[in-house]
């Protein structure tokens, strides 16, 4: 009886007893969820357009952030006064580097491997991951770096308001993250729904052959989606780097995007967002209210279990396309 009470009644009593903590937990979940969604978005973009399950998205996050911070340091070394000018210059250069990376990936990895089974392309992105780890450390060094959030005019500090005897604190950087992610998602959706290249991309996703036969250039599309994924990675890197630091352990966070993906479906942009929110809020609530029953720290696998449960009922994710099998 006691255990049932602890599972089914006590957590809700706590929620009612301290609504400020509940709101705070929900907010933390929302922020984490948005950031998971952002990483997942990077996966979705590439999977949609080329069927590649891009394992390198995690390391792209680190690489983009490292490039930004590393270039900023270089610029300062070269005499550009530190501050917003150098920061935005570094941002532009980092974007350029992600563009070059997209181009190189298409040339060196994707083009020679066109028409290979999915698992081979998946494996190739592992190769890319290894390469980027080595390259990033080689160029910028392996030591963790501070994200130049202040220089990029990202806000710091917190907004606090009182609530039911307690307080809820929202970090301004988190608020900014939520806003930026929302704008990015809206922008990307618009891009893929309304523009010519977006429509071409959806055509490619439906069928490579058909798209080719109506004159869509696969190469161009791939460069575009990898670049878009690079921009997404850079944004993720800035946001997550500001929450913690820019280091290679950041790539582990990217694994958190995987349950988001299976929940939302590999091919759906709204799916990534909804999935991210469910996972983010679900795991924070689970960890906060039910975690202590199991000795805490259940966050590392809880997300996967939530996703697995959904999957048993919808094997293609919430928003994924239904798989039709023919013999």
């Amino acid at each position, binding site marked *: 009886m006691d255990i049932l009470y602890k599972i089914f009644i006590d957590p809700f009593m706590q929620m009612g007893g301290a609504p400020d903590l509940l709101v*705070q937990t929900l907010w933390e979940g929302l922020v984490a969820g948005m950031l998971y969604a952002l990483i997942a978005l990077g996966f979705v973009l590439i999977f949609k357009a080329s069927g590649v399950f891009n394992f390198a998205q995690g390391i792209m996050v680190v690489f983009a952030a490292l490039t930004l911070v590393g270039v900023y340091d270089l610029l300062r070394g070269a005499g550009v006064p530190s501050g917003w000018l150098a920061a935005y210059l570094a941002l532009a250069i980092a974007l350029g580097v992600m563009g070059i990376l997209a181009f190189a990936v298409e040339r060196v990895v994707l083009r020679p491997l066109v028409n290979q089974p999915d698992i081979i392309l998946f494996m190739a992105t592992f190769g890319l991951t290894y390469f980027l780890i080595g390259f990033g450390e080689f160029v910028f060094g392996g030591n*963790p770096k501070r994200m130049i959030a202040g220089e990029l005019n990202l806000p710091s500090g917190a907004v606090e308001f009182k609530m039911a005897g307690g307080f809820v604190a929202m970090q301004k950087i988190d608020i900014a993250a939520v806003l930026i992610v929302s704008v990015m998602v809206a922008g990307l959706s618009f891009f893929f729904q309304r523009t010519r290249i977006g429509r071409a991309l959806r055509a490619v996703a439906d069928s490579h052959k058909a798209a080719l036969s109506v004159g869509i250039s696969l190469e161009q599309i791939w460069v575009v989606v990898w670049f878009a994924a690079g921009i997404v990675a850079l944004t993720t890197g800035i946001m997550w780097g500001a929450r913690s630091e820019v*280091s290679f352990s950041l790539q582990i966070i990217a*694994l958190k995007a995987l349950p988001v993906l299976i929940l939302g479906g590999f091919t759906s942009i709204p799916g990534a967002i909804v999935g991210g929110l469910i996972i983010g809020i679900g795991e924070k609530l689970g960890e906060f209210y039910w975690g202590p029953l199991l000795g805490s*720290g259940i966050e*590392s696998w809880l997300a996967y279990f939530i996703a697995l449960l959904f999957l048993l009922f919808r094997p293609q994710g919430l928003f994924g396309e239904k798989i039709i099998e023919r013999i």
Partner: protein
Amino acid sequence: MLGLRNIKTTMIAAALVAGTVATSPPATAQESIYVPLFTYRTGPFSGSGIYIAEGMRDYLEMLNQRDGGIGGVKLALEECETGYDTKKGLECYEAVKDKKPVVINPWSTGITLPLIPRAAVDKVPVLSMAYGLSAAAIGDTFPWIFNPPATYWDGASMILNYIGEKEGGIDKLKGKTIGYIYLDAGFGKEPIPLLEQLAKDYGYTLKLYPVAATEMQNQSSQWLNVRRDRPDYMIMYGWGALQPTAVKEAVKINYPMDKFVSIWWASEDDAAAGGPQSKGFKVLNWHAVGDNLPAIADIKKHVTDKNLTQTDKSHIGKVLYNRGIYNSMLIAEGIRNAQKLSGKKVITGEDMRRGLETLNIDAARYKEMGLEGFAGPVKLTCADHNGHFATYMQEWDGSKYVKVSGDLKASMDKVSPLMNAAAKEYTEKAGSWPKRTEACDKAS
């Protein structure tokens, strides 16, 4: 087809190389002492590892440059990159074993554990400075393992004693809540039995906040729990990215930073991560910070200024850089001692074991080394390979660490029973643990 031929040639080349790896004899010059340094300048923990690697190497390199080694024998230094990965660490161990190393510094608890039983068989002392298996401090059971100057259990006891001191007496801990945030691995879990035991003895409530290695940069739930439980003090046993993230999160929930105490692994970068609000963050330490010592000036003169190292000059004098120096100082003193004891110039691992066992570094010796006031005296005995020496508390003032306490001693009456029990348990579980046969030298 061209590609295929290329592959074949590569494979043949690879096979050839593999063959040479398999058969090539270890290449060490006779007239040098081989000191392998296990380091990690890469991987997820490189943030802490780089400083240590730099400090360790630079000090020994300085001895080579300035004095021509130790006792007239050059030190053959070789770094082996472990990436904090047990697999690579063991590969490093196998690779250096045949070259007759005098000492191994694994710099990872995960690598230390497999080496503990091997050390006695391979006759190579293992110096796991203030990490690894705490129970290995008992020299009668673990003659080949050295872990001065203090164990993780000592650390926990010292932190509690410090808190007690601040509260005005250890009995004031009664009724307090103490939170413990830690890396959810062997290292972080080790102090828990002691903290639990002391909770009973002192009457405080212990709250545990484990952080999985995969969640190091995602700690908001843990800190929400902290906010709910409102512990009076927080103790942290972290490493790598766990530490800056924890400091940031603590600042975020407005946790009073002067009540946030870390074991000795937090660096300047970790404290600085929280911005100006992290002022007051406390870390245990046992050696001086800063570069205001003659030996460090020598490092600059003989090593860094001559570009004999890849050390970033801004790292010199930082906590973990100096920690590396301390580690190398123990090695150097061990070698010097071993040379004195054995009368040989080129010593072996066995000699080194004797040298470390009779280590006795007092204030006068520190002065001779150009490290006056660097750290407290170290004196090891056959029975005690750790010393359980005092540490002090340092506080982050916004730009550097400043010393804020006198000597902190561990309550050995609490720690010893646990340590003895752990050592006994370890040997019992090992099946047949060899009795100590190594003779005990008189301290020099």
